[in-house]
């Protein structure tokens, strides 16, 4: 499902002045708004709708995230977007209800997805440098499955496309945020930090 452009939504919202009592945002109001919304909302949209500043939105989102722990729905956050989704422990039950089938991913796709998830935003050049093999097909396959998305372009020669994980990725793998990703091995994670801070090579393009 294509999500509407943020600017178009905000243009529409700009014409509507907040109604009586709208210049506040309670946890219950925020929960109700996200429940009704059929797509992820940005903090900017929520602030414009409620007539409050971003700090208030962030504070209420934090309160809501805490309040929903242990409940059947959870707050899902990726970048600036948030939405309500079912709890991971209810995944099997909901999958049976909607008739969803599990995603089958090849080892190559899982490797690539792991690289994107842990190192995002990342270029295809970095993916191929780590995997040691051309990854054009597998990247396109993950894009087609909407597990990764284009985030923009890097400020390096050739301006290569930057990839990151999508909401679909979080949902499919039962993650409410990227912080919930399984931890990498501590010893090798240190190596990754060193590698990540290294300047981008020519193969980044």
């Amino acid at each position, binding site marked *: *499902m294509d999500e509407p452009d943020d600017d178009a939504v905000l243009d529409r919202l700009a014409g509507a002045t907040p109604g009586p009592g709208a210049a506040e945002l309670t946890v219950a109001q925020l929960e109700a708004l996200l429940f009704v919304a059929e797509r992820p909302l940005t903090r900017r949209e929520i602030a414009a709708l409620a007539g409050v500043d971003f700090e208030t939105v962030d504070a209420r989102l934090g309160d809501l995230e805490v309040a929903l722990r242990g409940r059947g729905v959870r707050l899902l956050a990726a970048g600036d977007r948030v939405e309500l989704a079912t709890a991971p422990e209810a995944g099997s039950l*909901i999958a049976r209800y909607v008739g*969803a089938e599990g995603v089958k991913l090849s080892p190559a796709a899982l*490797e690539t997805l*792991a690289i994107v998830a842990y190192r995002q935003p990342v270029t295809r050049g970095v993916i191929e440098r780590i*995997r040691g093999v051309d990854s054009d097909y597998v990247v396109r396959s993950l894009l087609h499955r909407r597990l990764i998305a284009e985030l923009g372009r890097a400020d390096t020669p050739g301006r290569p496309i930057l990839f990151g994980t999508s909401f679909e990725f979080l949902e499919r793998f039962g993650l409410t945020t990227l912080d919930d990703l399984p931890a990498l091995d501590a010893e090798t994670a240190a190596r990754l930090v060193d590698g990540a801070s290294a300047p981008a090579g020519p193969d980044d393009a």
Partner: protein
Amino acid sequence: MDRLPVPVMAPRETPAISFTFDRRPETATQVRLEAFEGPLALLLALIEQRQLDVLTVRLGDLAAAYLEALALLPGDRLPHLSTFVGVASQLILIKSRALLPRSSALAEAAAEEGPDPEEELRRRLVLYRVYRDAGLALRARLESGVALFHREPAAAYAAGVAGARPADEAPLDPALLAAALVRTAQLAPPPAPPPELVARTITLAECAEAIRAALRGAPLVVLQELVAGIRDRVLVVVTFLAMLELVKRRELVVEQDAPWGPIRCRATTTAERIAAGVATDVPIDETLADFA
């Protein structure tokens, strides 16, 4: 020599390696390459099959096994062959440096060339293994059924995303289709009638009036000039007959000096018409009975 392969590791969707009966795993390996997309995956599998530590193994010792596996590379892997060969060249370089005695000067020169190729390849292997294992962890999470679901805009869309199929319905009754066709035929407007053909009517009186009008503006009218540009032969003929009728009624005097020459028409004067004793107020006979 019996070379029946004995699979020693074949978990689902995991790259598998088979050893031959008659050779020790440390010296030779027959590798199934279907699941190895890249050279690092292959090299790492060779290391792990020997239960060696990637951080301490002498990579040069694996050159022979890697080359043997490379020789078994299927033809459909040719697009990736260069990446496999690139790692093979690194392994051969590493092994050659380990075998050949090196002077301290050569070692210093090699150090200035850049990082040690063995350590560089080892670093790549470790980095690759991290993400390979992370991918396996993701797969385990995927298979544990912890997916999240959000509200969809429409139930039909949700069912489509989930891969659900609508319930089978009974086939449509042909009588319903026939009735619908009949209703459609009844609702359709009747076809428009074909356009009616209206015959053009040209009368002697109209043409005679045209000649009179011409003569009122000029003392002399040439018939050929009057009908010049008219492509309708009937109109030309009727105009000519009207001229003859006007001559008969003594309204005109016509002169023609030579056959096919210009026919000059001149209106008669009132004195000429009185002298001729012809009444001019009688309507023109359109039946042309007088000509018959």
